[in-house]
């Protein structure tokens, strides 16, 4: 079988397994959390506009927590579930390169994270468009109201795509190095990404979150500047942010692929 065919087989099987109903419901619920909150706001809010709801939910919840957590659950599925079930043996005693196993499954995990995160972001935009505040949404900043501008939706969707890529790569890589990727991933998400990225100063640039926010800040409508804490950092431009995130994701995948080649997994009976 060609390398492409092998990667496709591994990708497809990973998708089939990932989208089994009992596995995917929790991921879907998590991805839709911002949309659910936006939906509640659309019913009950009296002092928030659609753009405010979308930008704040996207900035503090979607990009900062939901995208990393969905990517964490998808990313560790590259190996952790196989290790937990001890089914990795079936893959590692077949004449296929371990690197292909890792990359094929990482591609599957990215597809899962991407699909759920993009659907979650779209659902957020749709749900928030129902917020009226006694007047119509500002069509100049909220395209789903009147679709004239991409200053909100495109920047969110771009950040979600980039975030899905880099976080899935990160957590897939972590799953190669540790037997407890969930714990490591949660600690990283909350202690590094959520905490450090909200501290004032240049330390923010040590987080992936900073580069995602840079993408939004550079691409987005000025309404993003109303978000609390926005001014506490100076953001990079969009091209540099996107490039950095893609390079980081590639390096993480390369690191995971290198490590898995000779890594030994011991399963106890």
């Amino acid at each position, binding site marked *: *079988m060609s390398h492409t065919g*092998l990667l496709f*087989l591994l990708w497809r*099987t990973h998708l*089939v*397994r990932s989208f*089994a109903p009992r*596995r995917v419901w929790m991921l879907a619920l998590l991805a839709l959390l911002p949309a659910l909150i936006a939906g509640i706001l659309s019913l009950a809010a009296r002092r928030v506009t659609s753009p405010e709801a979308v930008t704040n939910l996207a900035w503090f919840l979607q990009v900062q927590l939901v995208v990393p957590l969905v990517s964490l659950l998808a990313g560790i599925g590259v190996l952790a579930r196989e290790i937990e*079930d*001890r*089914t990795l*043996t*079936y*893959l*590692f*005693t*077949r*004449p*296929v*390169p*371990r690197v292909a196993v890792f990359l094929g499954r990482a591609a599957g995990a990215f597809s899962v994270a991407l699909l759920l995160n993009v659907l979650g972001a779209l659902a957020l935009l749709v749900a928030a468009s129902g917020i009226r505040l006694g007047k119509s949404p500002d069509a100049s900043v909220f395209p789903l109201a009147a679709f004239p501008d991409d200053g909100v939706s495109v920047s969110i969707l771009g950040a979600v795509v980039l975030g899905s890529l880099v976080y899935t790569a990160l957590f897939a890589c972590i799953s190669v190095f540790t037997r407890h990727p969930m714990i490591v991933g949660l600690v990283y998400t909350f202690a590094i990404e959520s905490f450090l990225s909200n501290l004032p100063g240049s330390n923010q640039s040590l987080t992936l979150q900073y580069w995602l926010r840079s993408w939004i800040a550079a691409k987005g409508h000025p309404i993003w500047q109303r978000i609390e804490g926005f001014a506490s950092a100076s953001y990079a431009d969009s091209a540099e942010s996107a490039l950095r995130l893609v390079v980081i994701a590639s390096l993480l995948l390369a690191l995971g692929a290198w490590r898995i*080649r*000779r890594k*030994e*997994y*011991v*399963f106890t*009976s």
Partner: protein
Amino acid sequence: MSGPLIEAHGLSRWYGPVVGLNDLELVVEGGIVGLLGPNGAGKSTFLKLVAGEIRPSRGTLRVLGHEPFANREYFRALGFAPQQDSLYDELTALEFVEFLARLSGLSARDARLRSQAALERTGMAGALHRPTRGFSKGMRQRTKLAAALVHGPQLLVVDEPLTGLDPLGRREMVALFQELGREGVHILISSHVLHEIESVTENIVLLHRSRLLAQGRVGDIRALLSRYPHRYEIRAQRARALASALLSLPATHSARVAPDGLGLTLETFAPAELERELPRILGELRPGLESIEGTDAGLDAVFDYLVA
């Protein structure tokens, strides 16, 4: 295959402070080989080493001329059915075996046809399209075996394959192993249930406390244990009279009558001589013989003796 099937020299494997296998010297020529030992003897560690799942901590291991760990060329010739029951629960039996067949390099069409054939051969014809999550332990064993066989391996390594099977299933599985052996497939099969292995092969490797205890044919190993007599369990209506007659033979070491007067345990250091004399005595005495069983030639007895 040139050279032995398995060749291990000073093979050791430890997990931190825990010794899994210690300084194993072993040469296995081929055929069906039973790997025996109590829990913790090192069987699974040895199988994992042979399957290329883990690497030795010290020493060397060559299987089919290859160092097994992460060796793709070797994996083409290997079929491994691990002890754990986990399958891909989201897939059907056919999808699971087919997926692994594709990974073994079969084309899509061949993978489908051979997966069906392998599952039918292991008795899973009626469950090809059922998701594996609802499978019993026995069905999982059969599916694992089909996955291990699907690409036509030279060496089949199976860890506790009879566990969870009902008596009929065990007989079918034993028959399948014997059939595969006749087809020229080398089989390394582990179990801690001794009579299971005995029904599959006479060639055994005994492990105990992470070390090699003995290797060879059951009968040969038994013959080495000259300090232990062979034992026969006899059921007869006139067991006391039979015991008395047998004690007159030079070959008889001891004869103990059971409290119910119907059972007799006979021990001898000269089984061949005793077995020549026994029919004559039975013919002359007519003790109402119900059964006679040479229990001590069995693997249980060999194992008990060796680890005692």
